[in-house]
């Protein structure tokens, strides 16, 4: 099995807030991320898929096809959007980097022909990222 990683970028707004808590509790736990006016990040997404090399084409997955799938399933939905307000999976889940990685996994799982989704890595900033390998 060989693994292929493709990178994509999107820019989104979000804030962290738990409706079950008081404003004071939200501010205590989430700090400046609790600002209800939101703030933005340039996210970098790395998607790793695994599979066997097709002996005819030499490919696991056509990179162009993988790029198009990432664009269709994730980037076109998240880019230049407010995640809390405009993306359905974050109506309930707080759009932390962890939850974004899980949401991206759920959007891509079983959508990539001839390969298995192996890892979703989401960078919120160059020094902070979350990895999700599906339910292990």
């Amino acid at each position, binding site marked *: 099995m*060989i693994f*292929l990683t493709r990178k994509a970028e999107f820019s989104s707004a979000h804030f962290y807030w738990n409706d079950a808590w008081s404003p004071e509790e939200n501010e205590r736990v989430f700090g400046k991320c609790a600002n209800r006016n939101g703030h933005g990040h340039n996210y970098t997404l790395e998607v790793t898929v695994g599979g066997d090399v097709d002996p005819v084409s*030499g490919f696991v997955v*056509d990179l162009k096809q993988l790029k198009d799938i990432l664009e269709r399933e994730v980037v076109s939905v998240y880019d230049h959007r407010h995640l809390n307000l405009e993306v359905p999976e974050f109506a309930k889940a707080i759009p932390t980097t962890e939850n974004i990685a899980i949401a991206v996994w759920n959007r891509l799982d079983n959508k990539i022909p001839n390969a298995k989704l192996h890892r979703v890595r989401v960078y919120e900033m160059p020094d902070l990222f979350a*990895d999700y390998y599906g339910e292990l």
Partner: protein
Amino acid sequence: MVKNATVYGKCNNPHGHGHNYTVQITVSGQVDPVTGMVCNLVDLDGFARKNIVERFDHTNLNTLDCFAQKVSTTENLSIEIYHIFKGFTAAHVERIHVEETSNNSFDYAGNGIPAPGTI
């Protein structure tokens, strides 16, 4: 011709195209209590230079014997480099990581399925 152009797109330009490939090799082993090393990095560098860089750098991959019967995709290049590095005996070769561009990279750790977190 048409089928090649359909499947490979701009990679099928008969004049070829190039990349600045970056290769990372991960080796493992016990730390030698005398040297404090898994293996001597000078040996690892020397092996990589002689067997990878001198062999592939500024060459047309399609003209090499190892790609006479295989398309020189980065998948196949990664597998080839992995097998070459199996000749490095000072430590256990765990994984080969090859970056084709800043957007695309490949990992090969042999036929097995690597433990979660290792790739």
